[in-house]
């Protein structure tokens, strides 16, 4: 008896089944997700694709820019006069505080030299424009119009006229990603301007106010206190305004006070931002003492053994 071929004709061939393909690509995606969140290995690929995508992104911004450009023709004289007045008033107000600044700065520099302290922040700054807000609903990010072309680096602080906005977290050739202080994974070391109490400001995600965690109920902090960066992380230069204490709950039964804060900067409204280049004013981190190293190793091997 002749064997009848069971192979279907060629035009029925469609490669592996959809389920097999889904399993294949799903596994690749999962490993990509893992590599990206854990190790950030894929930044090179990301920047290559980003360059390829850049023209399309640029074109996508044009309609909005065109509308804004046309919109400038329809500003009334009255609005402009009002704005001008407000700006002039602000200039005068701030002028008084700036006038004494040069001499104070000089004095400060001399005193610091006398005490052999390191100079305060002296790095360069770059004005950037916000291209668009991030589309990821799980993160608070904006994208700005300068990147490696303006020599920005991940970790540079970003501020606006009122205070800290966030920090640069990813730099691409013509743009950079800024994680805002309201992002859930973002923390800023701060101190209370009035009392000098140090703490860390944690973002809480979209629509929620950042909070100060792990502050004891009797900490010297009041409603409407201004929080400024303490500068101990080396990312944010010290003395930048960050937030104002909005609510304060001290319950005696709780271990920590519940403190929420209102960011001072127009975190998600400002159009123009200032990127502060990190000045390497901090000394290098000292080496870990040898015995803790050894202890770590034994700890690791024990964990591995067990």
């Amino acid at each position, binding site marked *: 008896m002749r064997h009848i071929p069971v192979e279907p004709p060629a035009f029925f061939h469609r490669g592996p089944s959809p389920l097999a393909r889904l399993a294949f690509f799903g596994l690749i995606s999962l490993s*990509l997700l893992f590599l990206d969140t854990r190790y950030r290995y894929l930044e090179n690929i990301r920047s290559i694709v980003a360059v390829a995508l850049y023209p399309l992104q640029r074109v996508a911004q044009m309609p909005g820019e065109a509308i804004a450009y046309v919109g400038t023709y329809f500003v009334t004289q009255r609005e402009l006069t009002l704005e001008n007045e407000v700006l002039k008033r602000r200039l005068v107000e701030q002028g008084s505080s700036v006038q004494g600044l040069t001499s104070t700065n000089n004095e400060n520099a001399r005193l610091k030299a006398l005490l052999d302290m390191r100079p305060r922040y002296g790095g360069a700054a770059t004005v950037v424009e916000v291209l668009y807000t991030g589309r990821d609903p799980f993160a608070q990010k904006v994208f700005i119009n300068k990147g490696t072309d303006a020599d920005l680096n991940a970790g540079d602080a970003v501020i606006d006229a009122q205070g800290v906005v966030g920090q640069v977290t990813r730099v691409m050739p013509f743009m950079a990603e800024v994680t805002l202080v309201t992002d859930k994974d973002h923390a800023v070391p701060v101190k209370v301007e009035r009392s000098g109490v140090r703490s860390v400001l944690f973002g809480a995600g979209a629509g929620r106010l950042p909070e100060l965690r792990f502050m004891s109920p009797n900490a010297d902090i009041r409603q409407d206190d201004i929080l400024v960066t303490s500068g101990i992380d080396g990312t944010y230069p010290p003395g930048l305004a960050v937030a104002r204490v909005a609510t304060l709950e001290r319950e005696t039964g709780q271990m920590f006070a519940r403190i929420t804060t209102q960011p001072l900067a127009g975190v998600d409204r400002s159009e123009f931002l200032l990127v502060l280049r990190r000045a390497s004013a901090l000394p290098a981190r000292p080496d870990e003492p040898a015995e803790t190293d050894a202890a770590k190793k034994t700890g690791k091997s024990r964990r591995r053994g067990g």
Partner: protein
Amino acid sequence: MAMPFLMPLSRATPDEILLPARPWFIVLTLVLALFANLLPLSGTALALRPDFLALVLLYWCIQEPRFVGVGVAWCVGLVMDVGDGTVFGQHALAYAFLAYAAEYFRRRVLRFPPWQQAAQVAVLLLLCAALVLLIRFVGGANMPRWSYAVPPLVGALLWPLVSAVLQWPQHPQRSSSDR
């Protein structure tokens, strides 16, 4: 029907068989959808904006499974991950899942009138959103607000329009002798 102005565009009449889509048209629509996704929106517009790329991919997975399948959807998803600055593989996984679901869906979904198709598409898009939510949850994200479910629903509402527009060039040209 609810939207009579769509009628001349949508749905092949029973005596009419759609022409195969031209590859350049598929690529063009995918690029345009990517473009629509990259528009710099903010505020309410951003909260309402559906994922156009997912819609167009879904349409082509249903209509032209030989050109657009799981692999293409995955690659397009990677590009979208870079465009949105999200975790690498998030959109890719979601779109691959969408393409896979479309494969099982496509034989019956086209038999329904557009609004019933839209209801089924809504379920698919919501499942996709839930998959993304799960991925981000494992990554340590907060629970988003209820507005997270709005873009998939808006996308489903747009489905009749999107499918009508994408179908348009495939309607066969009637020669004058037929009439």
